C-alpha cells in the first residue's frame, strides 16, 4: 500500500511537469513564435474544451465504439484463424511443406501495403478494414503458435505417447498447453500490429473511428482533435494490453517465472 502511494506521487509529479511545460510553450504569445496558428499547438484549456465537446456531442463515444468493433472482430477472427493454422502447420509436416511457402511469401508484406489492393477488391467499407486487421493478426499469431508447437519439449511428447495418448489427447492436453506461452505472446504482439493497421485503415477511408478523428483534425488544422484521437487510441490500447496480460497471467500460472514482466 505504501509502495502504491509512492508510485502515485511520482506519477503526479511526472505528469505535472510535462503539463506545465506544455502549458507554457502552448501559450498563444509563445507558440506564435514557432507556428502560424495557435490551433497547431493548442493550449491545455482548448484541449479540455475539445474533449468536453466531443464527449457531449457523442462523437468520441461513437468513434471509440466504431474502432472497438473493427478491432475486436478483426482481432478475434485473425487470432482464431492464426492459432488454428499455426497448430496445423506445426503439427503436420505435410501441411507445413504445402502451406509454408505461401506464409513465407505473404507474411513479410506490411499490411499497410495491402490497403490499396484490399480497397479495390472489397471497397472502402467495413470489410476492407476488418480484413486488414485479420491479415495482420493472422500472421503474427500463426507464427507464434507454430513456434510454440515446434518447441514443445520432446520428453513431454514421448512421455505422453508411452502413456498411451492418442493424437487428439496429445494435442489437447500436451501440445497446446505447452505452446500457450508462445501463443499468448503472439497475441500481445498482434495487438500492437492491429492498432497500427486500424489507424492507417481509418485514415485512408472512414467517416467514424478514432483514426478518423486524427485525420479530420489534420484536415481542419485542429490539433486538439488529433490529441483526442491519439489519447483515445492510447487508452484503448492500454486497456487491451492490460486485459491480455491478465489472461496471460491466468493461463500461465503453472510456469516457473522470474517475476512479473511488463
Amino acid at each position, binding site marked *: 500500500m505504501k509502495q502504491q502511494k509512492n508510485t502515485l506521487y511520482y506519477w503526479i509529479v511526472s505528469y505535472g511537469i510535462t503539463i506545465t511545460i506544455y502549458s507554457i510553450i502552448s501559450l498563444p504569445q509563445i507558440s506564435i513564435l514557432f507556428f502560424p496558428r495557435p490551433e497547431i499547438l493548442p493550449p491545455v484549456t482548448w484541449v479540455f474544451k475539445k474533449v468536453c465537446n466531443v464527449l457531449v456531442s457523442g462523437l468520441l463515444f461513437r468513434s471509440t465504439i466504431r474502432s472497438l468493433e473493427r478491432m475486436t472482430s478483426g482481432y478475434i477472427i485473425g487470432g482464431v484463424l492464426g492459432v488454428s493454422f499455426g497448430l496445423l502447420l506445426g503439427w503436420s509436416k505435410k501441411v507445413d511443406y504445402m502451406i509454408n511457402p505461401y506464409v513465407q511469401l505473404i507474411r513479410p508484406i506490411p499490411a499497410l501495403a495491402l490497403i490499396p489492393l484490399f480497397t479495390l477488391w472489397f471497397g472502402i467499407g467495413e470489410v476492407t478494414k476488418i480484413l486488414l486487421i485479420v491479415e495482420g493478426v493472422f500472421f503474427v499469431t500463426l507464427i507464434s503458435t507454430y513456434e510454440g508447437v515446434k518447441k514443445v519439449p520432446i520428453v513431454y511428447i514421448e512421455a505422453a*505417447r*508411452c*502413456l498411451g495418448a492418442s493424437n487428439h489427447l496429445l494435442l489437447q492436453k500436451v501440445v497446446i498447453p505447452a505452446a500457450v506461452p508462445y501463443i499468448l505472446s503472439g497475441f500481445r504482439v498482434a495487438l500492437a500490429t492491429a492498432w497500427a493497421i486500424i489507424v492507417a485503415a481509418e485514415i485512408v477511408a472512414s467517416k467514424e473511428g478514432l483514426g478518423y478523428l486524427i485525420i479530420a483534425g489534420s484536415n481542419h488544422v485542429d490539433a486538439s482533435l488529433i490529441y483526442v484521437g491519439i489519447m483515445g487510441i492510447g487508452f484503448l490500447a492500454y486497456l487491451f494490453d492490460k486485459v491480455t496480460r491478465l489472461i496471460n497471467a491466468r493461463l500461465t500460472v*503453472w510456469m*516457473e517465472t522470474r517475476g512479473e514482466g511488463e
Partner: protein
Amino acid sequence: MNLKPKIIVRNLFMSFKQEKEIKVLENINFEISLNEFVSIIGPSGCGKTTLLRIIAGFLKPTKGEVICDGTTVKGPSPSRVVVFQKDAVFPWMSVRQNVEFGLLAKGVSQEERTRISNYFIELVGLKGFEDNLPKTLSGGMRKRVDLARAYAAGPEILLMDEPFGSLDAQTKSKMQEELLKIWEREKRTILFITHDISEALYLSDRVIVLTSRPGKTKKIIKVSLPRPRKNELKFTPEFAELEREVWDLIQEKI
C-alpha cells in the same frame, strides 16, 4: 511361477547413419523374467539409453528384435512405460492430473481414475499434494509424481532411464529406497538404466554390464543380496566386493 521371459532382446544391432555409420549396439542378447528388477550399466556413450529407447518402441533396431510377452515391439505402448531422466512431469497439470493421464488416455471413468490415482499418489508418499502444481514441488517429489504416473497407467514393464540421475546424492539414495519399497508392494518388471554401480547393485536382481561403444553384453551379474534391502546394505563388505567386481569389469578394455 511364470517361466516364460517377459522381455527377450535377441541379436540386437543398432547403428546410426550420419556422415559415416556409427555402431552403437552390437549383438545384444538377454532375457528378463516377470517381475524381475534388472539394471543395465556401462560407461557413458555405450548405448544404454539407445537400448532402452528401442525396448520402449521409440527407435527401430538396425537388426534383431525385442519381444515383450511373445510379440515383437513395434512402437510405444502403455504396457511399457518409460520414466525419463529429464523432468517429464507436465508442469501445466496438477499432481493428480499428471497421475491420471495414462488412465485418461485409456478412457477410464472419472470415478475409477480418482480411485487409482489416490492409491498411487499415496503409495509414492504424495498424499496431500494432489492439487499442487509441479512448480511447487522439489525435484525428488516430481520424480515421485513421475513414478506414480507411470504406475497408474497400468504397465507390466517399467523402463527407467537414469530416473534419479539429476537428483542430489541424498535425495537419490532416499528415492532408491523408496523405489524398492514401492516395487515390493507393486511388483512389476523393471529395466533400470544407470551409470551408478552402487545404484544398480542396490536395486537389482541382476546387473547387465555393457562394454563401451559399440555396446556389447559383457557380463550379467546376479545380485543375490537378501531383500528387502535397506540403505545400510551399501556399507556392508559383501556389497563393497560386488561393487569392486563391477568396477573392474567396466574399467577393463574390451
